[in-house]
């Protein structure tokens, strides 16, 4: 395991050792329930509040605007449902995009069953939403817009500020799924002008088991998990203290070190892309040439299918992904790629290499060493490929 080259940071990141150190005491020493009145409860509560401060600092918002959840999916479900339910007397139309994560798209379908209506905006071949499209689709009863910040598959970063401005001019609440972006690229949510934002710990070298929703003060937010008064009544359930503490530390480290890592990762990414382009024919880089996540290398290899590429990479100790990991076992073609206009056949042969702060140029070189032969082997097996 330890020699795996992990180019799948979009699915999961290694917990930073400093984050883990910070979490450790909360399992066997500081194990109080944050709702308990006694010192051990208060100690846990203080730790959560410190984590909240750090999460808020990363996003440039106030601590009391942050609500912790158990994962990115819960953040998205909660934000959509909690905002939609709070706004339902004003209207029941939601606008989102066709490249959203399934933890946005599926709740939208459920809301539709419950009487809401929604519109999904198209994207261009780079995966960008056109602000004019957004303006056009706004209706009298549009109360909520949810457009992701960075796409987890192709890495495209939206012009969030422009989109949020259109919403705010019409007094429509604007949410963004920032799970692939937070902790990776710098941001100031107040400057971006979004009303609500979802983030997740495990995408930024924090542990699994913690997510958060930012909701700007003044917005109503109906709780999704119901029960006790945790998170000021917005999210019931005993807090996952160690994970939240780890999330806080990850946010602090991200705020401090993000620019260094981004430079490092961008360097790897660009070298890797150039290496692939130089050595392998009939490949296509998906996503936006400039507005992309630092670690995103999303490539379509013509004539062959993604899973078989992944398998051969895996045999070489290289971990990568095809499409979104939550769907990768389902083998469905990526809606994101189809929305960007790829043919189904090309979409089938797409691989996401997602680089992270722990990756090195040696690893990039090693992958570039084995990748051409893998692609060649599979192409030679493919009925679609005619040797030149």
């Amino acid at each position, binding site marked *: 395991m330890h020699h795996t080259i992990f180019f799948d940071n979009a699915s999961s990141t290694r917990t930073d050792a400093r984050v883990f150190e910070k979490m450790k005491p909360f399992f066997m020493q500081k194990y109080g329930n944050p709702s308990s009145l006694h010192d051990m409860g208060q100690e846990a509560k203080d730790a959560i509040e410190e984590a909240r401060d750090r999460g808020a600092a990363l996003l440039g918002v106030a601590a009391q605007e942050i609500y912790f959840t158990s994962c990115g999916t819960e953040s998205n479900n909660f934000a959509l449902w909690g905002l939609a339910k709070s706004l339902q007397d004003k209207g029941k139309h939601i606008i989102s995009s066709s490249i959203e994560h399934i933890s946005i798209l599926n709740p939208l379908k459920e809301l539709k069953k419950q009487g809401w209506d929604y519109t999904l905006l198209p994207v261009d071949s780079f995966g960008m939403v056109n602000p004019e499209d957004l303006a056009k689709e706004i209706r009298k009863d549009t109360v909520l817009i949810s457009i992701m910040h960075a796409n987890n598959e192709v890495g495209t970063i939206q012009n969030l500020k422009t989109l949020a401005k259109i919403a705010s001019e019409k007094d429509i609440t604007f949410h963004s799924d920032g799970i692939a972006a937070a902790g990776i690229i710098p941001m100031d949510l107040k400057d971006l002008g979004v009303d609500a934002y979802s983030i997740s710990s495990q995408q930024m070298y924090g542990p699994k088991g913690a997510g958060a929703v930012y909701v700007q003060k003044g917005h109503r937010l109906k709780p999704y998990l119901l029960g006790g008064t945790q998170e000021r009544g917005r999210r019931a359930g005993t807090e996952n203290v160690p994970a939240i503490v780890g999330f806080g530390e990850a946010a602090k480290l991200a705020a401090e070190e993000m620019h260094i890592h981004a430079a490092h990762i961008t360097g790897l990414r660009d070298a890797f892309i150039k290496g692939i382009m130089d050595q392998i024919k009939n490949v296509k880089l998906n996503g936006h040439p400039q507005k992309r996540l630092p670690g995103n290398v999303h490539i379509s290899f013509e004539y062959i299918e993604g899973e078989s590429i992944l398998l051969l990479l895996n045999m070489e100790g290289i971990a990568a992904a095809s499409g979104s990991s939550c769907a990768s*076992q389902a083998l469905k*073609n990526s809606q994101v790629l189809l929305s960007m206009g790829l043919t189904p056949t090309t979409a089938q042969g797409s691989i996401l290499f997602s680089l992270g702060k722990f990756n090195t140029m040696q690893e990039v070189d090693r992958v570039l060493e084995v990748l051409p032969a893998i692609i060649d082997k599979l192409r030679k097996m493919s009925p679609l490929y005619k040797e030149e």
Partner: protein
Amino acid sequence: MVEYSKQVIDHFMSPRNVGEIKDADGIGEVGNPTCGDMMTFYIKVKDHKLEDIKFKTFGCGAAIAVSSMVSELAMGKTLDEALSITNKDVAQKLGGLPKNKMHCSNLGADALHKAIQDYKQKNEK
């Protein structure tokens, strides 16, 4: 790695009989790249036996392993014997396939049968 058996991994990593037969006696094709799997089988027939089999496959690990296993199972068999090989037999020989692969990727026998039918059609005239 996924839930593939040792046999699947073996056939995927070292597929038997990959290739084309230029002057094939029969060709069979199933699937299409849109749904993720496509297999083309080429056969040479002599004395009602499969003298040679080659395949080309676009698809996942299972699809490639299935193609390879079918070619191995059928090699040298009579056409009737080959026609009696089912997709289920192939999956069994491979030590089983993950449930979500049984449907789309397990079409090797179909492709081979198509090639045999193609041969028969051409030779029934």
